[in-house]
């Protein structure tokens, strides 16, 4: 394993210490609970957004804490959902009296830990908590008998958009409804050229041949739905976009917010090249890209590969998208 670290057991806490040192004005970092918080304490009278999950997806979620986006991020061990104590501590720390929205990606561990934290918050009689679960990964079949789809790229877009709504002073119910709307009209699919190595595991999660790629991967270094021969970027773009467009039922004349996201180990040069393909395919389908993101936004350590997320756009979503955001990972309008 070749990584920049000291003891693999300390990687998350040491990285958080680095975040604290790098952003002293904008972030408060709670090293005991492994939380990233906005500097300056809770925002009175506004809904607060708490997200979290395993580490290894940076800049998500810690890098999305700041004005116009999250109020706190709970950082689990690498690829391991955070524990209820962390989530409860975050919830209590950010509650400004208007309630707290938990943004949870649909993984068994995340669901259960956030659920327990919400139960504990309810028992404590403190903050009013609502939860939205993201499940946008079309690589996974949705079914009542299984775990359902994974939450991936839409989580980033949702945190931005609902963060703007909270900043506007919308109520907890309104924020929840908006979050559910965003999740409902966003879909993603990803692929990997290489695996990644969890620091504590010390070896790659899977092995891929020189001429192979994994289609339908998530963000935890897990293998995907199918191992297929390596293909040119234009075919990969079709493979990823096809199911996303079909699942969303996108029609000619519609518009989207599009994200071409790197899994961590793919150079920006290649991501822009992929965006060129995505843009071309959407243009041919008569779909307009209202806004876009190209870069590393929800990663899987040093995995090489990318994912594509499309969110059906409307005027409200685009307006909230354009609202000021001031976080280490996303910044504009301020």
């Amino acid at each position, binding site marked *: 394993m070749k990584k920049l670290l000291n003891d693999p*057991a300390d990687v998350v806490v040491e990285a958080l210490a680095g975040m604290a040192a790098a952003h002293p004005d904008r972030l408060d970092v709670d090293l005991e609970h492994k939380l990233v918080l906005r500097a300056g304490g809770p925002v009175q009278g506004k809904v607060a957004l708490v997200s979290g999950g*395993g580490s290894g997806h940076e800049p998500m979620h810690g890098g999305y804490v700041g004005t116009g986006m999250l109020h706190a991020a709970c950082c*689990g*061990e*690498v*690829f*391991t*959902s*955070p*524990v*209820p*104590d962390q989530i409860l501590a975050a919830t209590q720390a950010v509650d400004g009296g208007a309630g707290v929205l938990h943004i949870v990606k649909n*993984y*068994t*561990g995340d669901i*259960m*830990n956030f*659920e*327990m934290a919400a139960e504990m918050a309810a028992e404590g009689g403190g903050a009013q908590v609502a939860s939205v679960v993201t499940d946008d990964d079309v*690589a*996974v*079949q949705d079914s009542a*008998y*299984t*775990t359902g789809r*994974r939450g991936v790229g839409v989580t980033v877009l949702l945190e931005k958009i609902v963060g703007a709504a909270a900043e506007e002073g919308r109520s907890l119910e309104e924020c929840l409804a908006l979050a559910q709307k965003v999740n409902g009209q966003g879909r993603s699919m990803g692929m990997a050229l290489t695996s990644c190595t*969890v620091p*504590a*595991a010390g*070896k*790659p*999660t*899977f092995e891929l041949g020189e001429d192979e790629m994994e289609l339908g991967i*998530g963000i*935890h*270094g*897990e*293998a995907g*739905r199918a191992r297929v021969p390596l293909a040119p970027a234009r075919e990969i773009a079709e493979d990823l976009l096809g199911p996303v467009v079909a699942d969303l039922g996108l029609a000619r004349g519609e518009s989207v917010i599009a994200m071409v996201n790197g899994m961590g180990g793919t150079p920006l040069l290649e991501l822009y090249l992929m965006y060129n393909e995505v843009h071309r395919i959407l243009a041919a389908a008569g779909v307009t890209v209202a806004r876009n993101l190209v870069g590393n936004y929800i990663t899987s350590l040093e995995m090489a590969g990318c994912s594509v997320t499309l969110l059906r756009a409307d005027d409200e979503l685009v307006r909230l998208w354009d609202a000021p955001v001031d976080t280490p990972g996303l910044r504009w309008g301020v």
Partner: protein
Amino acid sequence: MTVADVSQFRAWIADTSAMLTEQAEHLTDLDRAIGDGDHGTNMARGFAACAALPDADGEGIDAYLKKVGMTLVSQVGGASGPLYGTFFLRFAAPLAGATSVGPTEVAQALRAGVDGVVARGKAEVGDKTMYDALAPAVRAFDGAASGGADLAGCLEAAAVAAAGGRDSTEPLVARKGRASYLGERSAGHLDPGATSATMLLESAARSLG
């Protein structure tokens, strides 16, 4: 022996911790194949924290096991943290007030613990989860107890059944947890959680009997 006191429950957790530390890489390898490669690290970290819980004078079995459950909930994370945490929290409840317990009490506790896992995780037998090891273990324990076996015998039967349940997960296509994302590709691998659950019961048979 037919009864167990708090010191033996402590020994159980210490033994499980030692076992999990030794087997962490094996469990993580299983999780790399159909999950995300953290199960061994998660379990070893959590049980090490439990094994390090300070000895509280005159502590009851239920109080101790509740602490174990809470420690797991707050130290493990992922899917296994809430599940094993809930297991111990629920396991502890029927033992309230007891200072030494036999097959009847442990049967009750085990069933409560496993019911807690189901309540949290909603798994059914055949979903390729830890429940595939725990469900037959409960049945085997009960069977042995009603056949008059002592605690050691009951736990031995439970551990053997758990191992059988664990092995049964190999051909299964996962329907719960992270392995379910792999669809058909999840078949042909042991479930990591079923494997760690079996270790937990094997350790119980060694420590509590």
